[in-house]
């Protein structure tokens, strides 16, 4: 299954909906998308991962890269994910402490911490 990507704007935030597999093969596509958004002045990102069915460390690297990029502009990168098998890789790598992870897009849009 390939990666699917779509974006939409909600107030000052941009929701990136990702589906499929984020791995060494597709991660460059997600990386480009995040770079494009940040270059276009979108510094508050919500990445909806509910339709992601595979995420590996290359994909994690791209998310960490996105986080670094938005933070350089005082921005934020929030994740939406409730799938246990995806959450697991954030947990074993300790990245749950780095990313705010929300149960729904609405929750991520409302969050301000």
């Amino acid at each position, binding site marked *: 299954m390939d990666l699917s990507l779509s974006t939409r704007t909600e107030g000052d935030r941009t929701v990136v909906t990702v589906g499929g597999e984020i791995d*060494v093969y597709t991660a460059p596509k997600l990386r480009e998308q995040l770079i494009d958004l940040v270059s276009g002045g979108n510094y508050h990102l919500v990445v909806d991962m509910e339709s992601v069915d595979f995420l590996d460390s290359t994909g994690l690297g791209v998310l960490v890269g996105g986080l670094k990029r938005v933070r350089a502009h005082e921005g934020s990168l929030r994740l939406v994910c409730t799938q246990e098998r995806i959450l697991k890789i954030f947990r074993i790598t300790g990245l749950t402490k780095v990313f705010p992870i929300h149960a729904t897009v609405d929750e991520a849009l409302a969050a301000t911490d």
Partner: protein
Amino acid sequence: MPTVEVSFTALPSHVRTARLIALAVARRAGVDEQFLDEVRLAVGEACSRAVNVHQGTGLDAPIVMSLSDEQDRFSVEVTDRGPLEGAASAPDLDDLDAQALTAEAESDSEPMPDLLPPGFGLAVISGLVEDVAVTSDTTGTSVRMTWPATDVMAPDGR
């Protein structure tokens, strides 16, 4: 020799194929459903790592993935021709968040903030799979991962 060998050139698209093959064979070998996600992720990490090693060092040789289905164990061994990441650079998983945050301070000067530290893939594998053996010598590096399986394919099982 109950081993099937899959070899492929060091390309990202082949990592997906290797993952798909390992998953299909693991399921067929009777690896419990609860471990299949682990097989898929760990094999993907091992193959991605090997592909990166070959691409990084310009090696043309293929990556070899061996699938063995012996008694009540299913093993996948991924072998490359490159060096193992130095132990010195192997990240402490507990430290990754700290590393990620630190790196962020210098993100503007960093050309590739998407690159995780070398050894990250191996660290994920170790965090994920209970039975892992990593061996390395001058001919290359191999990551062997083993899972329990009910031996539905045993030749004497008919």
